[in-house]
């Protein structure tokens, strides 16, 4: 599973309306491991992910990009914000796709200097990877939530992001779309991407995750086992896309 820690955050502090939302917490993310971030509404899950991705300023935070290596030293968040934005990919609860078709949105994840032939090849591979071939010319604004999520995951795949943070990635999705999303996440994880998923929907990710962190009163508590409600059946191991009827049958 693990291949060493890819990034380590420590002393993460954040205040919101004079409340200590994140209270000096620390966490590490490692390639090929999936972490579920759980917690009540308003606990600060989204804020934490945004801080980790370099999108929201914390009161205090230290970041170490090469923890454990000789000479490695944690640096203040404000000194490595741009580096975080480049290295850590954050997917919003409702992924944002730019005006234009699916191909244009995928192309944005590739370096501009890439020759056209290579660019086209990679986009074709990404379309195939996320099973988006039929939608390649569809306008981004016309896609469903599940399809948008697949496009954004294909962008993460194209970018070869080592660290991927997802905020409620399967909210408001039908069971088939949830299964497709989990399937893509599993492939990213197998490709050694570190995943951190903030979600209330533990059952969907039950088979994917390696550990579960609970954010409570500004602190992270590690759960020994993922929280799976007794009355919910997890998606099948392997998480191949299922039809709606298959999903209903499983229920």
């Amino acid at each position: 599973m693990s291949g060493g820690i890819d990034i380590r955050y420590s002393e993460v502090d954040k205040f919101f309306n004079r409340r200590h939302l994140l209270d000096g917490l620390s966490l590490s993310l490692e390639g090929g491991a999936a972490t579920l971030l759980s917690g009540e509404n308003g606990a600060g899950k989204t804020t934490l992910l945004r801080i980790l991705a370099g999108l929201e300023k914390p009161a205090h935070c230290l970041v170490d990009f090469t923890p454990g290596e000789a000479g490695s030293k944690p640096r203040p968040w404000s000194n490595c914000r741009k580096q975080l934005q480049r290295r850590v990919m954050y997917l919003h609860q409702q992924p944002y796709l730019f005006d234009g078709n699916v191909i244009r949105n995928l192309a944005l994840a590739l370096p501009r200097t890439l020759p056209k032939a290579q660019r086209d090849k990679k986009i074709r591979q990404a379309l195939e990877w996320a099973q988006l071939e039929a939608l390649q010319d569809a306008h981004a604004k016309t896609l469903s939530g599940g399809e948008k999520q697949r496009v954004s995951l294909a962008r993460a795949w194209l970018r070869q992001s080592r660290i991927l943070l997802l905020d409620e990635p399967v909210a408001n999705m039908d069971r088939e779309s949830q299964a497709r999303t989990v399937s893509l996440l599993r492939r990213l994880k197998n490709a050694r991407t570190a995943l951190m998923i903030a979600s209330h929907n533990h059952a969907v990710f039950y088979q994917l995750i390696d550990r579960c962190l609970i954010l409570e009163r500004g602190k992270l508590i590690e759960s020994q086992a993922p929280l799976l409600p007794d009355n919910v059946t997890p998606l099948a191991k392997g998480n191949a896309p299922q039809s709606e009827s298959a999903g209903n049958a499983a229920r």
Partner: protein
Amino acid sequence: MDSLGDATVQALTLLLRGDGELWEIIGISFRVSLSAMSIAIPVALLVAFLLAHLEFRGRRLLISLFNTLLSLPAVVIGLTVYLLLSRQGPLGDWRLLFTQSAMVLAQVMLAFPILVAMGHAAFQAADQRAWETARTLGISSPQAFIMVVGEVRFGLLAAMLAAFGRIIAEVGASMMVGGNILHHTRNIPTAIALETSMGNFAQGIALGIVLLIIAFILNLSLQYFQGRGKLSV
């Protein structure tokens, strides 16, 4: 009413015949206003973007200031530029008073708050996720800015059209700092004011028709772009 009808017929004849003086005035109007727009747009859009995306002390005060400047009369801007460029003024050495450059400067000052206020509204209406997604895709800040501009292009075009409509039709500032000199600084609105005061209604109406056509084309464009903007959301 007869004199109005006669003047309109004469005005159309002047326009269609290609009256040199008339078309020169129209040319000066466009040269000055388009120059002012090309100077104001890049800076104003950057200011609008920063006001929408950056949190800093005094931000709200600046937004209120630009919104207040929207209602500033053109003559006040004309007076300010006049005092700046007059011989005793701080920029008197530039010797720009009663030149097209002075008119451009006044029109930049007129267009700037419109572009900032409407541009800010457009950027604020833009989804915050656009900027963040661009950054997490590894896109540089300048490129991400261009992408966000692309996402709100219809709102920004509306701001540009509104600003252009205001400056091409304003008379107070152009008259004060341009001086309404034939072949040099006489533009459409100052010419209308002069011709009307001299009783040359035909020329005044001809220029008025040109202004109306410009206003119509701008409004038509505005409707078109606003419609496109709604469709693309």
